[in-house]
Structures are given as structure tokens and as C-alpha cells.
């Protein structure tokens, strides 16, 4: 899960990483008061949305007076920020961070991720701070250094030295840099992060290292040992349907098409979306009803699909393994009857008890269209929505 900059900085503080003083604000008046209490020559107003590239999009602005901080905040709140990472719909700003200004001597890039190929922790650094790392890696990959750290050995001084020399930093900050890298590494493990990106990491005139921005993604799978993950969820940032699905344990992602999809298994769900596209229609969503889907869950899934008003037809593709097809059929029939379903539904059921399921569907008195295979079902549903 992605979290806000202010939440990322809370986590860094908790792990003893020094950050600039800042206050989260929801109104111009709060921003005014925050600027007064920070009492620095300038403050920075930063839109809090789950996306990078805010600076270029007008989501980060400098204010020289508390009045200016108030004005900028009032302009920013409620505006839709479209950045390189938000997609064309953008994100609405609901809160801003008022942060003290900093004396920037140098801007660097530093991120920590998991290297899937080697199962190590990867530190990625570049002296080109403030730029998008994807852009640097395309234009001048030689300006990026990746250092892999085996978690069973931890950070060694030579790892730090390699990064330090590559960044060309002043020897005076070596100790601080060592300490900084170690703190970040420990924070990454302690909080079960899957990504920590600091861009830019600044060197101040006084020779201090400070994360000016911080972006963190947390590993959802580790939420059982970090109860605070739940408090970090910001419903303003989530699609309400995705949140609803998540609360009942369904895996749903909204897309732009008009064929609602209900599939068991993530891989098959993706393959179903791809096949629909191939037959000239577009999937409205990704929905994995999961391995333990019972009638109740299937019914809930059905209701979520129907909440998306773009949906013109539904394609149910179930390969029974753990899920028995007759159970799915039962759920579909119950749900369809309960909500008085009017949209056309193409169903393809394969696997355990498929015959029993077909029989249930055929004798249900409801109008279901049966697909013989994934391709057949996708073809039929695409034909329905394309007329």
C-alpha cells in the first residue's frame, strides 16, 4: 500500500531519521498558524496525494509569509493535481503539509527496494537528485548505482563507501552518511516496506543530510504485525468500490471498460481481461473472487460489479479447483434473483462439478448465456457490448 509523504516522514522519525519540521494542514487558517509557529524565512506548501511528480504539476510551492502560505493552501485544497504518476484523471488535494524551508547545497537521489531476482535489499543512488529516476535510467544509466545488500549479513561499511564515492560527497559527511544509510536500512526492515524513495535527499549548507521528500510503499502482507497500517489508509485516495471489495476480502481493481469480470484466481483474471480486449471489448475491472469463494462472497462480488455504472454486460469465468462450480452457480443465481439482475451475463464454468453447475443455471429460470471456453465466453460477451 502507498502512503502519504507526511505518513512516510512519521515512520522515518519513529526510526530516528532526522527530517524537517512540518505540520499537516486541512485549511488556510491551519496553514497560517503552522507557518507562524515554524517561524522560518520561507515555508513550503506541499499537496498530500499518493503520487510523485507533484512539483512540476504545481503541488509544491514556496511561501514567504504566513499570509502567502494561507493563500497557496486555499488554492491547493480541492484542486485536482495531474502529475506524471496520477493518470489523466489526477488526484484531488484534501490536505497539505506545511514544512520549514531548507538551505539546499546539493540534491541527491536515494531509494531502497527489494531486488526480486537476488532476494536482496537494493539501495539505488544517484547524484541527480530531484529528477525522475526512470528518466535518468533511460537517458544516462551510468549516473545510477545499485548496491545489493544480503539481509543475512546486513549493511557493511564497504556498501556505504561505494555509494558515498559514487555520489562524490564531501568527506566531512561520511559519518553522517553511514549513519543515515544504516537507519534507512533498519527502518525498511522494521516497518516491512516494499519501497522507500527519497528524492531529493539534500545536503544542507551546514553539511547535514535530510530527506526533503519521502515516498513509502508498505507490504500489505505484513499488516498483521503492524496494526498502524490500518490507520494509514486514506479513503480519499482509494476508489470507493475497491475499498468496499477489500473490506469483504475481495480483490477488485477498477478499469475503464464496460465488461464486468468475475474470475477465480489472479492469473486467470488477468488472462480473461486480456482475452476480452482481444475480442474488441474492454474489461471494466479486475476481480478475483479467490479460492474460498462461497455463495455469499460471490453475491457480494456481483453487487460490487453492478455498482460500476459503466458495466454493460458481465463475464463470469470460473475454473473450479478449490471452488466448486455448483457453489458458484448457486451464488450467481441467488444474487441475480436478489437484486433483480437485468444485465446480460455470460458464464463459463469449468472444473469440479461443472455439469451440476450448468444444470443449475439452465433450470434457474434466469437468462444466462453459457460460454464453452474462455475464448468462447469472451467472444460472446464482447459481441453483446459491441452490439
Amino acid at each position, binding site marked *: 500500500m502507498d502512503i502519504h509523504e507526511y505518513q512516510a516522514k512519521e515512520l522515518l522519525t519513529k526510526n530516528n531519521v532526522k527530517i524537517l519540521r512540518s505540520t499537516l494542514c486541512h485549511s488556510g487558517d491551519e496553514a497560517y498558524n503552522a507557518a507562524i509557529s515554524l517561524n522560518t524565512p520561507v515555508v513550503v506548501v506541499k499537496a498530500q496525494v499518493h503520487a510523485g511528480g507533484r512539483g512540476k504539476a504545481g503541488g509544491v510551492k514556496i511561501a514567504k509569509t504566513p499570509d502567502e502560505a494561507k493563500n497557496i493552501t486555499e488554492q491547493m485544497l480541492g484542486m485536482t493535481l495531474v502529475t506524471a504518476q496520477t493518470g489523466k484523471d489526477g488526484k484531488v488535494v484534501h490536505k497539505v503539509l506545511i514544512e520549514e524551508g531548507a538551505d539546499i547545497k546539493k540534491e541527491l537521489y536515494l531509494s531502497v527496494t527489494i531486488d526480486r531476482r537476488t532476494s*536482496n535489499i537494493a539501495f539505488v543512488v544517484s547524484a541527480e537528485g530531484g529528477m525522475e529516476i526512470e528518466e535518468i535510467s533511460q537517458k544516462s544509466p551510468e549516473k545510477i548505482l545499485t548496491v545489493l545488500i544480503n539481509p543475512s549479513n546486513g549493511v557493511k561499511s564497504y556498501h556505504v563507501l561505494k555509494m558515498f564515492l559514487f555520489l562524490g560527497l564531501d568527506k566531512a559527511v561520511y559519518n553522517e552518511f553511514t549513519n543515515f544509510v544504516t537507519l534507512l536500512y533498519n527502518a525498511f526492515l522494521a516497518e516491512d516496506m516494499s519501497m522507500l524513495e527519497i528524492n531529493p535527499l539534500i545536503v544542507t549548507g551546514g553539511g547535514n543530510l535530510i530527506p526533503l521528500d519521502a515516498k513509502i510503499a508498505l507490504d500489505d502482507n*505484513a499488516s498483521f504485525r503492524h496494526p498502524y497500517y490500518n490507520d494509514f489508509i486514506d479513503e480519499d485516495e482509494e476508489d470507493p468500490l475497491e475499498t468496499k471489495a477489500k473490506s469483504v476480502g475481495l480483490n477488485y481493481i477498477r478499469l475503464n471498460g464496460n465488461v464486468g469480470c468475475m474470475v477465480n484466481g489472479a492469473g486467470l*483474471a488477468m488472462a480473461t481481461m486480456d482475452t476480452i480486449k482481444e475480442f474488441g471489448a474492454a*474489461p471494466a475491472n479486475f476481480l478475483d473472487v479467490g479460492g474460498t469463494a462461497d455463495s455469499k462472497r460471490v453475491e457480494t462480488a456481483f453487487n460490487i460489479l453492478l455498482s460500476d455504472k459503466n458495466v454493460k454486460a458481465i463475464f463470469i469465468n470460473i475454473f473450479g479447483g478449490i471452488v466448486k462450480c455448483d457453489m458458484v452457480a448457486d451464488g450467481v443465481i441467488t444474487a441475480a434473483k436478489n437484486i433483480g439482475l437485468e444485465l446480460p451475463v455470460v458464464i463459463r464454468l469449468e472444473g469440479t462439478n461443472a455439469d451440476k453447475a450448468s444444470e443449475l443455471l439452465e433450470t434457474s429460470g434466469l437468462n444466462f448465456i453459457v460460454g464453452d471456453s474462455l475464448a468462447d465466453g469472451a467472444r460472446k460477451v464482447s459481441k453483446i457490448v459491441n452490439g
Partner: protein
Amino acid sequence: MSILINKKTSVLVQGITGKEGSFHTLKCLEYGTKIVAGVTPFKGGSLFNDAIPVFNTVAEAKSNIKIDATVIFVPAVFASSSVIEAIESEIPLIVCITEGIPTIDMMSVKSALRGSGSVMIGPNCPGIITADECKIGIMPGFIHKKGKIAVLSRSGTLTYEAVNQLTNAGLGETTCIGIGGDPIIGSSFLTFLKMFENDPETEGVVLIGEIGGTQEEEASEYVKNYMKKPVVGFIAGKTAPEGKRMGHAGAIISGGKGTASEKLKIMEKNGVHIAENPSVIAETMIKALKKH
């Protein structure tokens, strides 16, 4: 022949008395799998299904009975501990079905695997099956039929889709392995491709990948450089948007990397026969077998 498991394989079930564990143990027994023991802490000394001895620890089970493979149904919170317990007990094959293990926990599992004699499949996978001989996992057994094609996949149900086609097309299967959908897994495609290339019964391999990571690309390098048998590839997630986790924790496109089109391009260049959609996997294999 087949790889890793056959009808003689003696299997241990970790988490045998749990809901998932007990349900699937019965299914595996029905299929003919030789399940010889189970482990559930504090249930040691009892019998599962009136026949299978249950022990408190893997070490205890191993000192009493010969074990070739273990399958893990333990909840995510304890699963990495169960895997490491199996590695330290020197079980040759470890199949972890559990979904939702934190990535950082899997990093310590990978450290424990390095230099050990164990091969690990999963986590977050359907398991492994050698058709008509031994099923260690949660896949529906009845779709499998002994034949000549191997299947390797990051997915669950999409694998069943492929297997069903291979069976219906009369090709049948040797061994099918779901390697798991997480960012860090016990063994990648590469490990098993090498085994299948050396398995005399396997005549071709179906490789089902998905968005995220780079293991399909690495596997295709091996296909190009070392494999004589045809490999048919499919990648799920052509329509997946960037930055969204598509069910599997490992299925995410980040920073424009790990897209389906990028993977397909590299696989095709390396001589993998691409199935354009999941419905033509068997068809593509039939054509590929003729060409080889």
C-alpha cells in the same frame, strides 16, 4: 520418469489438522499421493483420518518416518518458520501453498535455502503434480492425464486452464508446477526448466508467466542457449494498468518495467513459441512440436 515427485514419493503435511490442510490432505490421498505423516504443534501422538501419524515438529516426524517432500498449509504468520523448519530438517522438496507471507520473511527463507539441499516451490502456489502418480497441492487432480508436456506457471487457475487444454488435446502432462505469485519465491522458472530439459519423458514445456519481475526473461535466455525441447509461453496482464497490484503481490508493473509486451518481445526473440491468448496454449504446443 517425471521430475521431483512420483508414486513412490513419501509426503509430510505441515498444518495437517487445519481447515485447508485437512481438506487438501484428503484430496491428495484420493489422488493416490503417499502421505506418510503430518505435523501440527501440540497435536503430536494423534492420528489424522485414523491412519496418518501426527507429530509436533518436522524433526520428530523425520526421525520416525522417511520423508521425501513436505507440503505446508500453515497460516502466513507462521509459514516462514515452517519452511525454515523443513529446510533445517533437510527435507529435499518443500511445497508451500500459503498465501500472504511478508516479503521480508521470504528473504530470510531464501537465505536459509542457499547452500541447503532443499528445493522449494511457492509460496502462494497450487503446488506440484505428476499426472496419475502424485499430487502435492491444491490443483484439481481430474484434469491431469499422463502424457508428454510439462507446465510451469506463476498462476493457479490459469495453470488448470492450460492443463485442461493439454489433456483434451491428447498431449497429456508429465509434471506441472505452480511456482507461486509472490515477488520472492523459493525457485524460479529457471530451476525447473533445467530439470525438464533433462527429463526423458517431457517433450515440451508450457511456461505461463505474468507481469512483474524479470524471471520470464531469464528463463527465455536459458531456452535460447540450452534447450532442445520446444517451450510455449503465455504472459497474463497485457491490459493491466501500471502501479496496481493485480491480485498476486508479484504481479505489478513498476516504473514501466515488467510489462507483458516487454516480456513477450524478449521471449519471442529467444525462441519461445508465444500463445497469443490462453485459449490457444495447447494448439501452439502442437504446432511447436511439429516444428522441432
